[in-house]
């Protein structure tokens, strides 16, 4: 029983990283109907920003996290205004191809600047086990879960209760009508990219601290899984991304624990196919198009 509980917590920790990354996918999709394939690489850049900050300044963990999230937000907004904005009126496929190009560009940029060998992330969170009741949990695992949930609650509050959040919801429902209502669409899209990228960086920092390494292709696999999570929960929906992230992380962990490590990816993607066959809009998706 304790082992099962422990595995659930392992799953929660993996899932929370997927969930924060999935939020970036889903928010961008919700607002401009673009699958931002460069998002996994923004996560990677976020991890490098953190790595550089730790080495250059030796700041404590929370400061490193803030610096990395701010830099990633700036990067996200820059990418949007340089690469995606000029294509906003173009067919969707053009923007999608641009996103893939941006992803490859960021990976290769990191490759040129930082080289292929993995950089070792210093242990900015002291790593040791903590006993909670009968179960033993690592400090990094707890930090990951706590921080992810904290930022998700914060995001939920932002979207529901603040003015920019309200305009985000409005733009995602109907862009033309929002313009008529006097909402600054460009600013709203920039804010969305900033928040999504900052959450991506959060995922990147947590990922690199948990798994000790930073390297140019580190964003590919988690990015793909997070994308799956977003689709799984219903792309475009913020609660869907969170749910999807946790479910994917949980399935993966339980498969590894009780079936086999080698099968975990096959089972995760298999379940995705089944869900999409039964409910093409994802678990929380409504069956009407283009609504959030």
């Amino acid at each position, binding site marked *: 029983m304790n082992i099962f509980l*422990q595995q659930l917590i*392992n799953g929660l920790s993996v899932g929370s990283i997927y969930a924060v990354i999935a939020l970036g996918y889903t928010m961008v999709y919700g607002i401009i109907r673009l699958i931002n394939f460069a998002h996994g690489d923004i996560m990677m850049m976020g991890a490098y920003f953190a790595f550089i900050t730790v080495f250059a300044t030796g700041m404590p963990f929370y400061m490193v996290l803030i610096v990395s999230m701010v830099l990633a937000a700036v990067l996200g907004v820059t990418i949007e205004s340089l690469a995606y904005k000029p294509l906003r009126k173009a067919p969707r496929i053009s923007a999608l191809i641009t996103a893939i190009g941006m992803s490859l560009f960021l990976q290769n940029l990191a490759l040129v600047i930082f080289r292929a060998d993995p950089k070792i992330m210093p242990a900015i969170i002291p790593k040791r086990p903590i006993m909670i009741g009968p179960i033993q949990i690592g400090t990094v695992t707890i930090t990951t879960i706590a921080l992810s949930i904290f930022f998700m609650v914060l995001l939920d509050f932002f979207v529901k209760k603040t003015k920019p959040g309200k305009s985000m919801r409005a733009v995602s429902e109907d862009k033309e009508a929002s313009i008529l209502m006097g909402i600054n669409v460009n600013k709203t899209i920039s804010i969305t990219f900033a928040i999504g990228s900052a959450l991506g960086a959060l995922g990147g920092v947590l990922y690199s601290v948990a*798994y000790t390494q930073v390297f140019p292709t580190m964003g590919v696999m988690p990015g793909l899984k997070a994308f799956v999570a977003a689709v799984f929960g219903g792309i475009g929906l913020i609660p869907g991304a969170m749910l999807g992230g946790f479910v994917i992380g949980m399935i993966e*962990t339980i498969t590894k624990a009780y079936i086999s490590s080698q099968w975990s990816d096959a089972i995760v993607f298999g379940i995705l196919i089944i869900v999409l066959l039964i409910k093409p809009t994802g678990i929380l998706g409504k069956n009407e198009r283009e609504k959030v």
Partner: protein
Amino acid sequence: MKKRITVLMIITILVLSTVLAGCNAGGTTATTAAPAAVIKIGVIGPLTGDYSQYGVAVEEGAKLAAEEINAAGGINGAMVEIIAYDSKGDKTEGVNAYNRLRDQDKIVGLVGGTFSGVTLAIKEIAVEDGMPVLTPTATNLEVTLNAPNVFRACYTDPQQGSTAAIFAAEELGAKKAAVLYNIEDPYSEGLAVAFRDQFATTGTITNYEGYTKNDADFKSVLTKIQALDPDVIWLPDYIAKVGVILAQIQEMGIEVIAMGGDGWDGIEYDYADVAEGHYFVNHYAKTDPAEIVQDFIVAYEAKWSKSPNALAALGYDSTKIMADAIRRAGTTESAAVVTALAATDMDGVAGHVTFDENGDPNKSITIIQVINGEHVVAGKVGGN
């Protein structure tokens, strides 16, 4: 892409020109020292690209050995010259390099290749040529099979896996062991199988788990392993992956002794704290007090301003073994050198070497424990 090719070409030309310039310079000094007597030994390894660290280590070890041999009067008066070509870790490039060494440079013997894959490709041609080949580092079992002229200076994958299992059972008193290996890598799988088969004869294998190269989260598998409470966990992979696993073992507070193969060599640079107290099998130990080891380290550091890894030691040993065989043969003729190689019986940095009928070394295997970020010799297990 086109630009990259141009850059690569420029690099290749530059590398070649330095190598050739080096040859010329070496040739001239050799002529003044001992007229018309230069013995050329070829080295093949990845000298550029992602794996360059491995090939460069072998080349540097070989050049250091050649320098020492020449300083001591050369081979029967002839100066040794090392000619190193780049394989980029690629089979075709490796075969091209071999052909060039044989036809253009007329080498007496080959110290190479560095990787098992390249060495297997070269072996096919070298067997027909009867060329004396001594690979310093190719651990794949196939390399020396059905090839009377191909020898190796390192132990094989099955040897290190089973040696580690014996050490775990006898020296660490382990009764239960878990195995966690990379299913996508033949090296990792080879070591996993060898360890499992040997350990199962004296103890229990609690878990035999595979992972893929993209896996980063091992907590669920480790939780599963922790529940069965093994004494030892066998992690036969390279540092980048082993470090990630060890960090999670530490974070989860699992009390288990981790062990690994020669892929762990150098783990103390990035993962000293998580590798603390754990063991791995290696070709030699930097802290081995034996005179031959310490002299080598001092000389290597003086010449190359860095600390030698196991590959450098093996490149150094292989060159000395090859030179010794040529000296005993008394001629540079291939057949005689091969016969002399087979009769090798000498001390090297990485242990005493004699060859069995396949051309594999009967040599001691060193087990190292990482203590305070240093390699400490925990045991030496005799050959076979």
